[in-house]
């Protein structure tokens, strides 16, 4: 009856492996399963990087601060195909000179598309592709907007995620995303990003994760813009450390903080985010 024992071990193992505390990113949602992720983010910058990666102190009393809310919705159409949408709402304060504050609020650039799981490696690792449209949810006919890049766009994203190799760790997961985004405007921009995430459970309900984001935006418009949502030509490196807690099978929450230690033609940003993962 050795085989029965083997089968039993398989069952035990798969129940252990199937329930790591994963975030939603990269992992197929799956048929009949839906996910809603509200996110609240805070971003602030006072200093900036010039085009040679040097930090330039901001003028006294100037800053850019953004409070944004994102609503991510994922709907599992089939075992491989998911519908995904992200709708942002922004509130920004851009103090360009002492006593001169620009305040803007409204919906930003929505991202709507589909994610398809191309390769499923033993239900442990997943390689997927996402194709999305970028739809400005503000008036783009009145010239540049602080809420976004004022142009329609598209995005192709490759995602590879799954459990960490057993040689590295018996627990934990990783997520790698490479995205190319193009805005249909004479000034673009074209953007590429590389995101790497490693998550590790520190207890049954708690986890730590580290996101590392490398972002490059190309445009013929090289002008510095302190508003990160409307800037066009820049690059930055942003690590973010998160703590996640699973409250129930349907609800988890993550809180994290980030800092931009390196960048070109962008702000020396810092801030944090709070997000909830609601599985329906």
């Amino acid at each position: 009856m050795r085989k029965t024992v083997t089968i039993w071990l398989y069952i035990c193992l798969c129940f252990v492996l199937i329930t790591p505390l994963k975030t939603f990113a990269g992992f197929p949602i799956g048929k009949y399963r839906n996910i809603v992720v509200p996110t609240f983010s805070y971003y602030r910058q006072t200093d900036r990087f010039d085009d040679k990666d040097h930090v330039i102190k901001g003028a006294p009393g100037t800053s850019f601060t953004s409070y944004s809310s994102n609503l991510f919705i994922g709907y599992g159409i089939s075992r491989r195909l998911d519908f995904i949408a992200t709708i942002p709402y922004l509130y920004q304060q851009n103090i360009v000179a002492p006593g001169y504050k620009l305040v803007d609020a409204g919906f930003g650039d929505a991202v709507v598309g589909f994610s398809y799981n191309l390769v499923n490696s033993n239900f442990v690792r997943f390689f997927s592709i996402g194709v999305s449209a970028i739809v400005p949810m503000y008036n783009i006919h009145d010239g540049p907007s602080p809420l976004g890049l004022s142009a329609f766009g598209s995005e192709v994203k490759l995602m590879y995620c799954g459990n960490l190799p057993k040689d590295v760790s018996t627990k934990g997961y990783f997520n790698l995303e490479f995205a190319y985004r193009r805005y249909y405007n004479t000034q673009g921009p074209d953007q590429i990003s590389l995101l790497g995430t490693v998550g590790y459970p520190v207890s049954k309900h708690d986890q730590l994760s580290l996101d590392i984001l490398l972002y490059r935006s190309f445009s013929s418009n090289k002008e510095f813009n302190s508003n990160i949502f409307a800037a066009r030509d820049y690059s930055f490196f942003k690590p973010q450390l998160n703590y996640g807690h699973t409250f129930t099978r349907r609800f988890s929450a993550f809180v994290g903080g980030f800092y931009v230690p390196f960048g070109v033609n962008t702000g020396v940003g810092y801030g944090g985010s709070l997000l909830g993962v609601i599985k329906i």
Partner: protein
Amino acid sequence: MKKVCYIIVFALSILLGSLAAVKAQQQTEETGDVVLKATPYNKTALFTSSEEVRYRVQLHNNTKQQQNGRVLYQVTTDDGKKVTADSVRISLREGGDKDIIVNIRKRNTGFYRINFIVKLPEYDDTVRRVFGVNPEKVTSQLHKPKDFDAFWKQSKVELAQVPANYRVLERKDLSTQYKKVYSVEMHSYGDLVIRGWLVVPTDGNKFPVHYRVPGYVVSLQPNMDNDDFIAFDLNVRGNGNSKDVINIGTDNYSLINIENKEKYIYRGVYMDCLRGLDFLYSHSNLGIDTSKIFVEGGSQGGSLALITAALDKRVKLLTMQVPLYADIHDNFAISASYDQQVFPFKVFRKYQSQHAGFSWEKFYSTFDYYDPQNFAPMVKCPVLMGIGLLDQFCPPRCSMALYNHISSTNKEFVCVPNSTHEVNFNYFMFQNLWLREKFRIP
């Protein structure tokens, strides 16, 4: 910024490199003078009757000398009738490799054995494989006795007449911070006491249930590894901690009262499984979501799971692996072609040879009441089944015949080509996702 790019690329390279290393490590090391690896072009080794059956045969010379010889392949039906054979001359230099493509012309529905044989002057080796053609069109004859339904209806009536007298004892010595373990006891058919283990996660109020029934004379223990389900593991009579009256080894368990259909061991065993469901339904106070009970088992447990789902509509999902005893008539014919007998017919043939007057007609006059295949049309819930193509205990033809008799149209099967009487880890990963999909578990 360039420095950062280098760091990122370096980190990603390490991660991807480690993934590749793991993949390489997972590949089994094989030994032998000449190693033969046969890979079907269709990953599951299942083909249609409109396509050629194709294998890639990879040879590797492990020795430090030239090897000259032949590679033969022989195809037979699953009951041993010759279909085709051919051979290829090979010449392998020291450490050399060679690939051969084997094409077999279109075959009819069924399962076929294919043996690849390396023949060298001083070395022989055989790799045995099985492939299937149109598995979902495999048919078999149902040998269902006329009073089959009445027989089981009466069995259920007799079970209902036995007061269950449930005893549920919390086992604090086995419980953890996250799981409460209960030892469960109840009276079943014939007033025998049977026992099981109930494990309830502590972080929730209501859970779906994973109801597991045992393999052949297997002792089920508390299942502590399931966070999203209440795990109920029932030891039917003669198994695990339910051996008060029947305590007999694997050689004789399936023979108890085999000459009397009324008293055959499995009548009580099948009813034990239903009594387990009675227990679950009467203990929703323990957090059991009675609207979400799935029954699962492997081998004998696979058949018990199917029969439970067939006889009791309170089961909402059925998952089974390599169901034992399925399509017992065809299993008899297939097993007759084996070089060495294996369970279950190893036991049945031995008994038959030692008991004058116990003909195969007599055997079927009992066993036709118990063949899981005869219960299959009564299964209406969603079904997932796993089979191993090299399985001799439950030949794939028999498992697929049973599967094709299942009434439910919401059914899937997973084929594991190189497994014998078991499925693999991937199957269970898929099973878990399948369950979550069907039960809408996040």
